Protein backbone atom coordinates (compact mmCIF):
# COMPACT_ATOMS: atom_id res chain seq x y z
CA UNK A 1 0.00 0.00 0.00
CA UNK A 2 1.67 3.21 -1.16
CA UNK A 3 0.84 6.76 -0.17
CA UNK A 4 2.73 9.64 -1.78
CA UNK A 5 5.57 7.30 -2.60
CA UNK A 6 5.77 5.80 0.92
CA UNK A 7 5.22 2.10 1.55
CA UNK A 8 2.79 2.59 4.45
CA UNK A 9 2.68 -1.08 5.51
CA UNK A 10 6.46 -1.25 5.63
CA UNK A 11 6.73 2.01 7.55
CA UNK A 12 4.13 0.90 10.12
CA UNK A 13 5.86 -2.45 10.65
CA UNK A 14 9.22 -0.66 10.87
CA UNK A 15 7.95 1.51 13.68
CA UNK A 16 6.35 -1.49 15.38
CA UNK A 17 9.64 -3.40 15.25
CA UNK A 18 11.50 -0.38 16.63
CA UNK A 19 8.98 0.07 19.44
CA UNK A 20 9.23 -3.62 20.35
CA UNK A 21 13.01 -3.47 20.33
CA UNK A 22 12.92 -0.33 22.48
CA UNK A 23 10.62 -1.92 25.03
CA UNK A 24 12.77 -5.04 25.17
CA UNK A 25 15.89 -2.93 25.62
CA UNK A 26 14.42 -0.89 28.44
CA UNK A 27 13.18 -3.98 30.30
CA UNK A 28 16.58 -5.67 29.77
CA UNK A 29 18.33 -2.62 31.19
CA UNK A 30 16.04 -2.48 34.21
CA UNK A 31 16.63 -6.18 34.84
CA UNK A 32 20.36 -5.63 34.37
CA UNK A 33 20.37 -2.73 36.82
CA UNK A 34 18.68 -4.91 39.43
CA UNK A 35 21.26 -7.68 38.82
CA UNK A 36 24.08 -5.15 39.08
CA UNK A 37 22.81 -4.07 42.49
CA UNK A 38 22.66 -7.70 43.64
CA UNK A 39 26.22 -8.18 42.37
CA UNK A 40 27.43 -5.05 44.19
CA UNK A 41 26.05 -6.42 47.46
CA UNK A 42 27.87 -9.72 46.83
CA UNK A 43 31.15 -7.91 46.06
CA UNK A 44 30.86 -5.77 49.19
CA UNK A 45 30.58 -8.87 51.38
CA UNK A 46 33.21 -10.98 49.61
CA UNK A 47 36.75 -10.74 51.01
CA UNK A 48 39.61 -9.46 48.86
CA UNK A 49 41.79 -12.00 47.04
CA UNK A 50 44.59 -11.96 49.60
CA UNK A 51 42.42 -11.44 52.68
CA UNK A 52 42.53 -15.11 53.70
CA UNK A 53 46.28 -15.49 53.57
CA UNK A 54 48.85 -14.02 55.97
CA UNK A 55 50.31 -10.57 55.46
CA UNK A 56 53.62 -11.25 53.76
CA UNK A 57 54.51 -7.59 53.34
CA UNK A 58 56.24 -7.49 56.76
CA UNK A 59 59.05 -9.44 55.11
CA UNK A 60 59.35 -7.10 52.12
CA UNK A 61 62.36 -5.16 53.42
CA UNK A 62 64.42 -8.33 53.90
CA UNK A 63 63.11 -9.97 50.73
CA UNK A 64 64.18 -7.05 48.54
CA UNK A 65 67.83 -8.03 49.15
CA UNK A 66 67.29 -11.63 48.05
CA UNK A 67 67.43 -12.66 44.41
CA UNK A 68 64.97 -15.53 44.51
CA UNK A 69 62.75 -16.95 47.23
CA UNK A 70 61.28 -20.44 47.32
CA UNK A 71 57.74 -20.49 48.69
CA UNK A 72 56.90 -23.38 50.95
CA UNK A 73 53.31 -23.50 52.16
CA UNK A 74 51.54 -25.91 54.43
CA UNK A 75 48.94 -28.33 53.17
CA UNK A 76 50.36 -31.19 51.24
CA UNK A 77 54.00 -31.08 52.21
CA UNK A 78 54.01 -33.91 54.68
CA UNK A 79 56.61 -35.43 52.39
CA UNK A 80 58.34 -32.10 51.69
CA UNK A 81 57.19 -32.14 48.09
CA UNK A 82 56.17 -29.07 46.10
CA UNK A 83 53.01 -27.30 47.21
CA UNK A 84 49.96 -28.61 45.43
CA UNK A 85 48.25 -26.58 42.76
CA UNK A 86 45.56 -25.29 45.09
CA UNK A 87 48.20 -23.33 46.94
CA UNK A 88 48.57 -20.91 44.07
CA UNK A 89 46.80 -18.08 45.83
CA UNK A 90 49.13 -17.74 48.88
CA UNK A 91 52.07 -17.97 46.49
CA UNK A 92 50.73 -15.20 44.26
CA UNK A 93 49.83 -13.05 47.25
CA UNK A 94 53.36 -13.52 48.60
CA UNK A 95 54.76 -12.56 45.20
CA UNK A 96 52.54 -9.48 45.09
CA UNK A 97 53.71 -8.39 48.53
CA UNK A 98 57.39 -9.07 47.99
CA UNK A 99 57.98 -7.88 44.39
CA UNK A 100 60.52 -7.23 42.92
CA UNK A 101 62.00 -10.25 44.72
CA UNK A 102 61.05 -13.37 42.75
CA UNK A 103 58.92 -15.86 44.69
CA UNK A 104 58.46 -19.33 43.23
CA UNK A 105 56.91 -22.55 44.42
CA UNK A 106 59.52 -24.63 46.24
CA UNK A 107 60.47 -28.05 45.03
CA UNK A 108 62.03 -30.32 47.65
CA UNK A 109 63.47 -28.47 50.61
CA UNK A 110 67.23 -28.78 50.31
CA UNK A 111 70.26 -26.65 51.22
CA UNK A 112 70.71 -25.50 47.62
CA UNK A 113 67.79 -23.10 48.06
CA UNK A 114 69.11 -19.62 48.73
CA UNK A 115 66.03 -18.41 50.57
CA UNK A 116 62.80 -20.06 51.67
CA UNK A 117 59.55 -18.41 52.68
CA UNK A 118 57.92 -20.83 55.08
CA UNK A 119 54.16 -20.41 55.46
CA UNK A 120 52.93 -23.11 57.82
CA UNK A 121 50.12 -22.43 60.26
CA UNK A 122 51.00 -25.27 62.65
CA UNK A 123 53.72 -23.74 64.83
CA UNK A 124 55.33 -27.02 65.83
CA UNK A 125 55.68 -28.18 62.28
CA UNK A 126 56.84 -24.74 61.15
CA UNK A 127 59.66 -24.68 63.71
CA UNK A 128 60.68 -28.18 62.68
CA UNK A 129 60.93 -27.11 59.05
CA UNK A 130 62.89 -23.96 59.98
CA UNK A 131 65.29 -25.99 62.13
CA UNK A 132 65.83 -28.38 59.24
CA UNK A 133 66.50 -25.52 56.84
CA UNK A 134 68.97 -23.71 59.10
CA UNK A 135 70.77 -26.97 59.80
CA UNK A 136 71.08 -27.57 56.07
CA UNK A 137 72.43 -24.06 55.49
CA UNK A 138 75.00 -24.50 58.26
CA UNK A 139 75.98 -27.89 56.87
CA UNK A 140 76.66 -26.21 53.53
CA UNK A 141 79.12 -23.91 55.31
CA UNK A 142 76.97 -20.79 55.20
CA UNK A 143 75.48 -18.50 57.77
CA UNK A 144 71.73 -18.87 58.34
CA UNK A 145 69.36 -15.93 58.84
CA UNK A 146 65.75 -16.12 60.01
CA UNK A 147 63.23 -13.28 59.77
CA UNK A 148 59.83 -13.82 61.40
CA UNK A 149 56.64 -11.90 60.77
CA UNK A 150 53.89 -11.48 63.35
CA UNK A 151 51.45 -12.89 60.80
CA UNK A 152 53.21 -16.29 60.81
CA UNK A 153 55.33 -16.64 57.64
CA UNK A 154 59.08 -16.94 58.22
CA UNK A 155 61.89 -16.16 55.82
CA UNK A 156 64.98 -18.34 56.08
CA UNK A 157 68.07 -17.68 53.99
CA UNK A 158 71.74 -18.39 53.93
CA UNK A 159 74.75 -16.29 53.12
CA UNK A 160 78.38 -17.20 52.65
CA UNK A 161 80.16 -16.50 55.94
Amino acid at each position, binding site marked *: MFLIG*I*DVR*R*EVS*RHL*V*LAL*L*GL*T*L*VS*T*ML*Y*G*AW*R*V*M*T*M*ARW*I*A*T*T*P*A*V*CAKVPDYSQLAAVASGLP*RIAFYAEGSQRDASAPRRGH*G*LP*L*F*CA*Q*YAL*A*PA*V*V*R*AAGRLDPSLVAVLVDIGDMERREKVIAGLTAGIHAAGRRAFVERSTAGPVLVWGRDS
Partner: protein
Amino acid sequence: MVLAAGAGVIGPALWRAGIRGWPLVCYTVGLAPALGFGPLSLLFFYARLGDLARPGLWTVAMVLASVLVLAVWCTPSRTVERTSSPGARGSRLLAVAALLALATSGIGALIVHDVQRRAWPEGTHDAVAVWNVRALFFYRDAQAFPARLREVEPRSHPHYPLFLPLAVAGQYALAEREAMAVPQATALAFVLATGFLLVAVLADVGHWPLGALAAALFWTTPVALLWGFSQGADGAVGYFLFVAVAALAAGLDDGLRLPRWLGGLALGLLAWTKNEGLVLAGLTGALYLLYRWAQRHRISGRELATLIAWSVPGLAALLLMKTWWAPESGLTTYLKGDWRARILQWQRWSYPLTEFAARFVGARGVEGWSANWPVLLAGGVIAGLWARRGRANGAGFWLGVLLLATLSFVGFYAVAPYEQRWLVAGSIDRLMLQLYPVAIGGVFLAIARLGDSPAARSGDGAMTSEASR
Protein backbone atom coordinates in the same frame (compact mmCIF):
# COMPACT_ATOMS: atom_id res chain seq x y z
CA MET B 1 46.53 13.69 33.24
CA VAL B 2 47.40 10.86 30.85
CA LEU B 3 43.78 10.64 29.75
CA ALA B 4 43.60 14.40 29.23
CA ALA B 5 46.74 14.19 27.10
CA GLY B 6 45.20 11.30 25.13
CA ALA B 7 42.10 13.40 24.53
CA GLY B 8 44.33 16.25 23.42
CA VAL B 9 45.95 13.95 20.86
CA ILE B 10 42.80 12.49 19.32
CA GLY B 11 40.61 15.60 19.42
CA PRO B 12 42.38 17.63 16.69
CA ALA B 13 42.60 14.58 14.41
CA LEU B 14 38.86 13.98 14.70
CA TRP B 15 38.20 17.65 14.05
CA ARG B 16 40.25 17.37 10.89
CA ALA B 17 38.17 14.32 9.95
CA GLY B 18 35.16 16.59 9.91
CA ILE B 19 33.62 15.37 13.18
CA ARG B 20 31.90 18.05 15.20
CA GLY B 21 29.50 18.46 18.09
CA TRP B 22 28.56 15.60 20.40
CA PRO B 23 30.16 12.87 18.26
CA LEU B 24 33.45 14.78 18.61
CA VAL B 25 33.07 15.12 22.38
CA CYS B 26 32.11 11.46 22.90
CA TYR B 27 34.78 10.15 20.51
CA THR B 28 37.40 12.29 22.22
CA VAL B 29 36.48 11.01 25.68
CA GLY B 30 36.03 7.46 24.42
CA LEU B 31 39.36 7.33 22.60
CA ALA B 32 41.42 9.04 25.31
CA PRO B 33 42.62 5.73 26.89
CA ALA B 34 43.86 4.43 23.51
CA LEU B 35 45.83 7.61 22.80
CA GLY B 36 46.91 8.14 26.41
CA PHE B 37 47.70 4.72 27.85
CA GLY B 38 48.78 3.21 24.51
CA PRO B 39 51.76 5.51 23.78
CA LEU B 40 52.63 5.61 27.50
CA SER B 41 52.91 1.82 27.75
CA LEU B 42 54.91 1.56 24.52
CA LEU B 43 57.20 4.43 25.50
CA PHE B 44 58.15 2.77 28.79
CA PHE B 45 58.72 -0.54 27.01
CA TYR B 46 60.97 0.86 24.29
CA ALA B 47 62.84 3.08 26.77
CA ARG B 48 63.70 0.05 28.90
CA LEU B 49 64.48 -2.05 25.83
CA GLY B 50 66.91 0.61 24.66
CA ASP B 51 68.43 0.94 28.15
CA LEU B 52 67.41 4.59 28.22
CA ALA B 53 66.61 6.59 31.33
CA ARG B 54 63.11 6.22 32.75
CA PRO B 55 60.90 8.61 30.75
CA GLY B 56 59.82 11.69 32.67
CA LEU B 57 56.97 14.08 32.20
CA TRP B 58 58.66 16.04 29.40
CA THR B 59 59.56 12.91 27.44
CA VAL B 60 55.97 11.66 27.68
CA ALA B 61 54.69 15.10 26.63
CA MET B 62 57.05 15.19 23.65
CA VAL B 63 56.09 11.68 22.52
CA LEU B 64 52.39 12.49 22.79
CA ALA B 65 52.95 15.74 20.87
CA SER B 66 54.66 13.73 18.13
CA VAL B 67 51.75 11.29 18.05
CA LEU B 68 49.41 14.29 17.76
CA VAL B 69 51.31 15.69 14.78
CA LEU B 70 51.43 12.28 13.10
CA ALA B 71 47.74 11.64 13.80
CA VAL B 72 46.68 14.95 12.31
CA TRP B 73 49.01 14.44 9.34
CA CYS B 74 47.59 10.96 8.67
CA THR B 75 43.95 12.08 8.92
CA PRO B 76 42.52 13.21 5.59
CA SER B 77 40.94 16.63 5.85
CA ARG B 78 37.21 16.48 5.28
CA THR B 79 34.33 18.86 5.34
CA VAL B 80 31.22 16.82 5.92
CA GLU B 81 27.78 18.14 5.31
CA ARG B 82 24.96 15.97 6.52
CA THR B 83 21.84 16.33 4.40
CA SER B 84 19.79 15.21 7.40
CA SER B 85 20.77 16.67 10.71
CA PRO B 86 22.21 14.08 13.06
CA GLY B 87 20.25 13.41 16.17
CA ALA B 88 17.12 14.89 14.69
CA ARG B 89 15.58 11.48 14.12
CA GLY B 90 13.46 9.85 16.76
CA SER B 91 11.18 11.54 19.19
CA ARG B 92 12.10 13.95 21.95
CA LEU B 93 10.71 11.40 24.39
CA LEU B 94 13.22 8.80 23.22
CA ALA B 95 16.04 11.33 23.60
CA VAL B 96 15.04 12.20 27.15
CA ALA B 97 14.60 8.53 28.09
CA ALA B 98 17.97 7.64 26.57
CA LEU B 99 19.73 10.44 28.44
CA LEU B 100 18.08 9.37 31.67
CA ALA B 101 19.12 5.74 31.09
CA LEU B 102 22.67 6.84 30.27
CA ALA B 103 23.01 9.02 33.35
CA THR B 104 21.46 6.45 35.70
CA SER B 105 23.52 3.55 34.40
CA GLY B 106 26.68 5.68 34.45
CA ILE B 107 26.11 6.61 38.08
CA GLY B 108 25.33 2.95 38.83
CA ALA B 109 28.61 1.88 37.21
CA LEU B 110 30.52 4.45 39.30
CA ILE B 111 28.89 3.13 42.46
CA VAL B 112 29.79 -0.48 41.57
CA HIS B 113 33.36 0.63 40.88
CA ASP B 114 33.54 2.30 44.27
CA VAL B 115 32.16 -0.81 46.00
CA GLN B 116 34.56 -3.08 44.11
CA ARG B 117 37.67 -0.99 44.72
CA ARG B 118 36.91 -0.86 48.43
CA ALA B 119 36.20 -4.59 48.70
CA TRP B 120 38.98 -5.80 46.41
CA PRO B 121 41.58 -2.99 46.33
CA GLU B 122 44.24 -4.98 44.50
CA GLY B 123 41.76 -6.48 42.02
CA THR B 124 40.73 -10.06 41.31
CA HIS B 125 43.00 -13.11 41.23
CA ASP B 126 44.53 -12.41 37.80
CA ALA B 127 45.18 -8.78 38.69
CA VAL B 128 47.16 -9.92 41.73
CA ALA B 129 48.90 -12.86 40.09
CA VAL B 130 49.63 -11.34 36.68
CA TRP B 131 48.85 -7.72 35.87
CA ASN B 132 49.37 -5.55 38.94
CA VAL B 133 52.32 -7.55 40.22
CA ARG B 134 54.08 -7.11 36.88
CA ALA B 135 53.53 -3.35 37.10
CA LEU B 136 55.16 -3.43 40.55
CA PHE B 137 58.11 -5.45 39.19
CA PHE B 138 58.64 -2.90 36.45
CA TYR B 139 58.21 0.20 38.59
CA ARG B 140 60.32 -1.02 41.51
CA ASP B 141 63.24 -2.31 39.44
CA ALA B 142 62.95 -1.73 35.71
CA GLN B 143 66.60 -2.65 35.15
CA ALA B 144 66.09 -6.17 36.48
CA PHE B 145 62.66 -6.60 34.89
CA PRO B 146 63.62 -8.72 31.85
CA ALA B 147 65.73 -11.08 33.96
CA ARG B 148 63.03 -11.41 36.61
CA LEU B 149 60.35 -12.02 33.98
CA ARG B 150 62.25 -15.16 33.02
CA GLU B 151 62.44 -16.29 36.65
CA VAL B 152 58.93 -15.71 37.98
CA GLU B 153 56.46 -18.50 38.64
CA PRO B 154 55.50 -19.97 35.24
CA ARG B 155 51.88 -20.21 36.38
CA SER B 156 51.77 -16.39 36.44
CA HIS B 157 52.04 -16.41 32.62
CA PRO B 158 55.25 -14.41 32.14
CA HIS B 159 54.65 -14.60 28.37
CA TYR B 160 51.59 -12.33 28.58
CA PRO B 161 51.97 -9.00 26.74
CA LEU B 162 52.71 -5.93 28.81
CA PHE B 163 50.32 -3.18 27.75
CA LEU B 164 48.47 -2.99 31.05
CA PRO B 165 51.41 -3.48 33.47
CA LEU B 166 53.48 -0.85 31.68
CA ALA B 167 50.56 1.59 31.40
CA VAL B 168 50.14 1.29 35.17
CA ALA B 169 53.90 1.38 35.89
CA GLY B 170 54.20 4.40 33.60
CA GLN B 171 51.60 6.24 35.66
CA TYR B 172 53.43 5.26 38.87
CA ALA B 173 56.61 6.68 37.37
CA LEU B 174 54.95 9.95 36.38
CA ALA B 175 53.39 10.29 39.82
CA GLU B 176 56.66 9.09 41.39
CA ARG B 177 54.78 6.78 43.76
CA GLU B 178 52.74 3.61 43.84
CA ALA B 179 49.05 3.90 44.51
CA MET B 180 46.31 1.31 44.21
CA ALA B 181 44.16 4.08 42.80
CA VAL B 182 46.14 3.88 39.54
CA PRO B 183 45.12 0.38 38.34
CA GLN B 184 41.65 0.97 39.77
CA ALA B 185 41.23 4.21 37.81
CA THR B 186 42.73 2.64 34.69
CA ALA B 187 40.09 -0.10 34.79
CA LEU B 188 37.37 2.49 35.33
CA ALA B 189 38.67 4.52 32.38
CA PHE B 190 38.31 1.57 30.00
CA VAL B 191 34.76 0.76 31.13
CA LEU B 192 33.62 4.38 30.89
CA ALA B 193 35.46 4.97 27.61
CA THR B 194 33.80 1.92 26.05
CA GLY B 195 30.41 3.41 26.91
CA PHE B 196 31.31 6.82 25.51
CA LEU B 197 32.60 5.18 22.37
CA LEU B 198 29.27 3.39 21.92
CA VAL B 199 27.49 6.75 22.18
CA ALA B 200 29.98 8.30 19.75
CA VAL B 201 29.69 5.57 17.11
CA LEU B 202 25.90 5.79 17.05
CA ALA B 203 25.96 9.59 17.24
CA ASP B 204 28.32 9.57 14.27
CA VAL B 205 25.62 7.97 12.12
CA GLY B 206 22.99 10.33 13.48
CA HIS B 207 21.45 8.22 16.26
CA TRP B 208 22.85 9.42 19.54
CA PRO B 209 19.78 8.35 21.59
CA LEU B 210 20.40 4.78 20.43
CA GLY B 211 24.04 5.24 21.35
CA ALA B 212 23.04 6.36 24.82
CA LEU B 213 20.88 3.24 25.15
CA ALA B 214 23.78 1.08 23.92
CA ALA B 215 26.10 2.55 26.55
CA ALA B 216 23.42 2.15 29.20
CA LEU B 217 23.06 -1.50 28.22
CA PHE B 218 26.82 -1.95 28.59
CA TRP B 219 26.91 -0.23 31.96
CA THR B 220 24.01 -2.30 33.31
CA THR B 221 25.61 -5.63 32.46
CA PRO B 222 26.86 -7.24 35.69
CA VAL B 223 29.66 -9.23 34.02
CA ALA B 224 30.91 -6.20 32.10
CA LEU B 225 31.28 -4.22 35.31
CA LEU B 226 32.64 -7.10 37.40
CA TRP B 227 35.41 -8.04 34.97
CA GLY B 228 35.81 -4.52 33.62
CA PHE B 229 36.67 -3.25 37.11
CA SER B 230 38.68 -6.37 38.00
CA GLN B 231 41.98 -4.65 37.01
CA GLY B 232 42.56 -7.46 34.52
CA ALA B 233 43.19 -6.95 30.81
CA ASP B 234 39.90 -8.25 29.38
CA GLY B 235 38.13 -4.89 29.51
CA ALA B 236 41.05 -3.32 27.63
CA VAL B 237 41.00 -6.12 25.01
CA GLY B 238 37.26 -5.56 24.43
CA TYR B 239 37.88 -1.82 24.18
CA PHE B 240 40.72 -2.07 21.66
CA LEU B 241 38.82 -4.60 19.56
CA PHE B 242 35.88 -2.20 19.48
CA VAL B 243 38.09 0.75 18.50
CA ALA B 244 39.73 -1.33 15.77
CA VAL B 245 36.46 -2.63 14.33
CA ALA B 246 34.78 0.80 14.42
CA ALA B 247 37.75 2.52 12.77
CA LEU B 248 38.07 -0.16 10.09
CA ALA B 249 34.30 -0.22 9.51
CA ALA B 250 34.65 3.47 8.64
CA GLY B 251 36.51 2.25 5.58
CA LEU B 252 33.57 0.06 4.57
CA ASP B 253 31.02 2.84 4.00
CA ASP B 254 29.50 2.29 7.42
CA GLY B 255 28.69 5.95 7.85
CA LEU B 256 31.42 6.28 10.48
CA ARG B 257 34.12 8.88 10.05
CA LEU B 258 36.93 7.57 12.21
CA PRO B 259 40.36 7.82 10.58
CA ARG B 260 41.84 4.52 9.39
CA TRP B 261 45.16 4.98 11.18
CA LEU B 262 43.23 4.53 14.41
CA GLY B 263 42.34 1.02 13.26
CA GLY B 264 46.02 0.23 12.81
CA LEU B 265 46.93 1.66 16.21
CA ALA B 266 44.14 -0.27 17.92
CA LEU B 267 45.14 -3.54 16.21
CA GLY B 268 48.70 -3.12 17.45
CA LEU B 269 47.59 -2.27 20.98
CA LEU B 270 45.14 -5.18 20.94
CA ALA B 271 48.04 -7.55 20.32
CA TRP B 272 50.12 -5.76 22.98
CA THR B 273 47.39 -6.29 25.59
CA LYS B 274 46.86 -10.06 25.78
CA ASN B 275 47.83 -13.21 23.91
CA GLU B 276 44.38 -13.68 22.38
CA GLY B 277 44.59 -10.03 21.31
CA LEU B 278 47.12 -11.03 18.67
CA VAL B 279 44.69 -13.59 17.25
CA LEU B 280 41.83 -11.10 17.36
CA ALA B 281 43.98 -8.44 15.69
CA GLY B 282 45.04 -10.85 12.93
CA LEU B 283 41.49 -12.01 12.28
CA THR B 284 40.07 -8.48 12.30
CA GLY B 285 42.76 -7.11 10.00
CA ALA B 286 42.42 -10.03 7.57
CA LEU B 287 38.63 -9.79 7.50
CA TYR B 288 38.82 -6.07 6.82
CA LEU B 289 41.10 -6.60 3.82
CA LEU B 290 38.82 -9.39 2.59
CA TYR B 291 35.81 -7.13 2.91
CA ARG B 292 37.48 -4.35 1.00
CA TRP B 293 38.29 -6.84 -1.71
CA ALA B 294 34.71 -8.16 -1.79
CA GLN B 295 33.32 -4.65 -2.06
CA ARG B 296 35.60 -4.15 -5.08
CA HIS B 297 37.08 -1.16 -3.42
CA ARG B 298 40.70 -1.02 -4.22
CA ILE B 299 42.61 -0.64 -1.03
CA SER B 300 45.15 2.02 -1.76
CA GLY B 301 48.81 1.50 -1.02
CA ARG B 302 48.72 4.59 1.18
CA GLU B 303 45.87 3.24 3.27
CA LEU B 304 47.54 -0.13 3.67
CA ALA B 305 50.82 1.53 4.59
CA THR B 306 49.02 3.73 7.15
CA LEU B 307 47.32 0.73 8.73
CA ILE B 308 50.55 -1.25 8.94
CA ALA B 309 52.65 1.68 10.12
CA TRP B 310 50.31 2.49 13.00
CA SER B 311 50.07 -1.14 14.10
CA VAL B 312 53.84 -1.65 14.05
CA PRO B 313 54.67 -0.08 17.47
CA GLY B 314 52.33 -2.49 19.26
CA LEU B 315 53.13 -5.54 17.16
CA ALA B 316 56.88 -4.95 17.31
CA ALA B 317 56.73 -4.47 21.08
CA LEU B 318 54.98 -7.81 21.37
CA LEU B 319 57.50 -9.55 19.13
CA LEU B 320 60.50 -8.03 20.93
CA MET B 321 59.08 -8.76 24.37
CA LYS B 322 58.35 -12.38 23.45
CA THR B 323 61.76 -12.84 21.84
CA TRP B 324 64.03 -11.11 24.35
CA TRP B 325 62.22 -10.85 27.66
CA ALA B 326 59.69 -13.65 28.02
CA PRO B 327 60.85 -17.18 28.90
CA GLU B 328 58.77 -18.47 25.97
CA SER B 329 56.17 -17.16 23.56
CA GLY B 330 53.29 -18.97 25.24
CA LEU B 331 53.02 -21.59 22.52
CA THR B 332 55.17 -24.05 24.47
CA THR B 333 52.71 -23.91 27.36
CA TYR B 334 49.73 -23.97 25.04
CA LEU B 335 50.89 -26.97 23.03
CA LYS B 336 52.11 -28.93 26.05
CA GLY B 337 51.30 -32.63 25.89
CA ASP B 338 49.61 -34.30 22.93
CA TRP B 339 47.87 -31.33 21.32
CA ARG B 340 47.14 -33.27 18.14
CA ALA B 341 45.10 -35.77 20.13
CA ARG B 342 43.26 -32.94 21.84
CA ILE B 343 42.32 -31.39 18.50
CA LEU B 344 40.83 -34.68 17.34
CA GLN B 345 38.52 -35.04 20.34
CA TRP B 346 35.09 -33.82 19.28
CA GLN B 347 34.05 -33.32 22.90
CA ARG B 348 36.76 -30.72 23.38
CA TRP B 349 35.09 -28.66 20.64
CA SER B 350 31.47 -29.38 21.47
CA TYR B 351 31.68 -28.45 25.15
CA PRO B 352 32.94 -24.86 24.71
CA LEU B 353 30.57 -24.43 21.75
CA THR B 354 27.68 -25.43 24.01
CA GLU B 355 28.86 -23.02 26.71
CA PHE B 356 29.07 -20.11 24.27
CA ALA B 357 25.66 -21.01 22.83
CA ALA B 358 24.18 -21.16 26.35
CA ARG B 359 25.28 -17.58 26.93
CA PHE B 360 24.12 -16.35 23.52
CA VAL B 361 20.60 -17.70 24.09
CA GLY B 362 20.52 -16.93 27.82
CA ALA B 363 20.08 -20.53 28.97
CA ARG B 364 19.17 -21.27 32.57
CA GLY B 365 22.07 -21.38 34.93
CA VAL B 366 24.10 -18.77 33.05
CA GLU B 367 24.68 -15.94 35.48
CA GLY B 368 25.84 -12.39 35.10
CA TRP B 369 24.84 -11.47 31.58
CA SER B 370 21.30 -10.59 32.50
CA ALA B 371 19.24 -11.15 29.31
CA ASN B 372 21.56 -9.07 27.17
CA TRP B 373 23.05 -11.59 24.75
CA PRO B 374 19.67 -13.06 23.67
CA VAL B 375 18.28 -9.54 23.25
CA LEU B 376 21.30 -8.53 21.17
CA LEU B 377 20.98 -11.71 19.13
CA ALA B 378 17.28 -11.06 18.48
CA GLY B 379 17.98 -7.42 17.60
CA GLY B 380 20.74 -8.48 15.22
CA VAL B 381 18.54 -11.07 13.51
CA ILE B 382 15.62 -8.65 13.11
CA ALA B 383 17.87 -5.89 11.82
CA GLY B 384 19.60 -8.36 9.48
CA LEU B 385 16.33 -9.60 8.02
CA TRP B 386 15.05 -6.08 7.61
CA ALA B 387 18.21 -4.86 5.97
CA ARG B 388 18.04 -7.62 3.35
CA ARG B 389 16.80 -5.30 0.68
CA GLY B 390 18.90 -2.34 1.71
CA ARG B 391 22.63 -1.90 1.71
CA ALA B 392 24.45 -4.17 4.08
CA ASN B 393 27.22 -1.61 4.68
CA GLY B 394 29.75 -2.88 7.20
CA ALA B 395 27.22 -4.84 9.31
CA GLY B 396 28.58 -8.09 7.97
CA PHE B 397 32.08 -7.03 9.01
CA TRP B 398 31.00 -6.53 12.64
CA LEU B 399 29.19 -9.87 12.59
CA GLY B 400 32.15 -11.56 10.89
CA VAL B 401 34.56 -10.36 13.58
CA LEU B 402 32.25 -11.72 16.28
CA LEU B 403 31.88 -15.11 14.57
CA LEU B 404 35.58 -15.52 13.86
CA ALA B 405 36.53 -14.42 17.36
CA THR B 406 34.07 -16.86 18.94
CA LEU B 407 35.37 -19.70 16.78
CA SER B 408 38.96 -18.81 17.67
CA PHE B 409 38.04 -18.96 21.35
CA VAL B 410 36.42 -22.37 20.86
CA GLY B 411 39.60 -23.50 19.10
CA PHE B 412 41.68 -22.17 21.99
CA TYR B 413 39.62 -24.18 24.47
CA ALA B 414 39.87 -27.30 22.32
CA VAL B 415 43.67 -27.22 22.12
CA ALA B 416 44.58 -25.77 25.54
CA PRO B 417 46.29 -28.35 27.76
CA TYR B 418 44.24 -27.68 30.89
CA GLU B 419 41.26 -29.46 32.36
CA GLN B 420 38.61 -28.06 30.07
CA ARG B 421 35.63 -27.56 32.37
CA TRP B 422 37.79 -25.71 34.88
CA LEU B 423 39.30 -23.55 32.14
CA VAL B 424 35.97 -22.70 30.51
CA ALA B 425 34.28 -21.95 33.83
CA GLY B 426 37.09 -19.59 34.82
CA SER B 427 37.45 -17.66 31.60
CA ILE B 428 34.47 -17.83 29.23
CA ASP B 429 32.73 -14.74 30.64
CA ARG B 430 35.94 -12.76 30.37
CA LEU B 431 36.36 -13.84 26.74
CA MET B 432 32.77 -12.87 26.03
CA LEU B 433 33.43 -9.48 27.60
CA GLN B 434 36.15 -9.02 24.98
CA LEU B 435 33.48 -9.43 22.27
CA TYR B 436 30.71 -7.56 24.05
CA PRO B 437 31.37 -3.95 22.96
CA VAL B 438 31.65 -5.06 19.32
CA ALA B 439 28.42 -7.04 19.68
CA ILE B 440 26.54 -4.06 21.14
CA GLY B 441 28.03 -1.63 18.65
CA GLY B 442 27.32 -3.87 15.65
CA VAL B 443 23.75 -4.68 16.63
CA PHE B 444 22.87 -1.10 17.55
CA LEU B 445 24.33 0.16 14.27
CA ALA B 446 22.17 -2.38 12.46
CA ILE B 447 19.13 -1.27 14.47
CA ALA B 448 20.00 2.33 13.66
CA ARG B 449 19.60 1.42 9.99
CA LEU B 450 16.04 0.35 10.79
CA GLY B 451 15.44 3.81 12.21
CA ASP B 452 16.67 5.48 9.03
CA SER B 453 14.09 6.62 6.56
CA PRO B 454 14.00 4.54 3.35
CA ALA B 455 15.70 7.40 1.51
CA ALA B 456 18.57 7.53 3.96
CA ARG B 457 18.77 3.73 4.14
CA SER B 458 18.95 3.34 0.40
CA GLY B 459 22.38 4.90 0.44
CA ASP B 460 24.33 6.53 3.16
CA GLY B 461 26.21 8.35 0.51
CA ALA B 462 23.06 10.46 0.33
CA MET B 463 23.29 11.10 4.03
CA THR B 464 26.78 12.43 3.96
CA SER B 465 28.63 14.10 1.20
CA GLU B 466 32.31 14.36 1.65
CA ALA B 467 34.79 16.64 0.09
CA SER B 468 38.12 15.00 0.62
CA ARG B 469 41.21 17.01 0.38
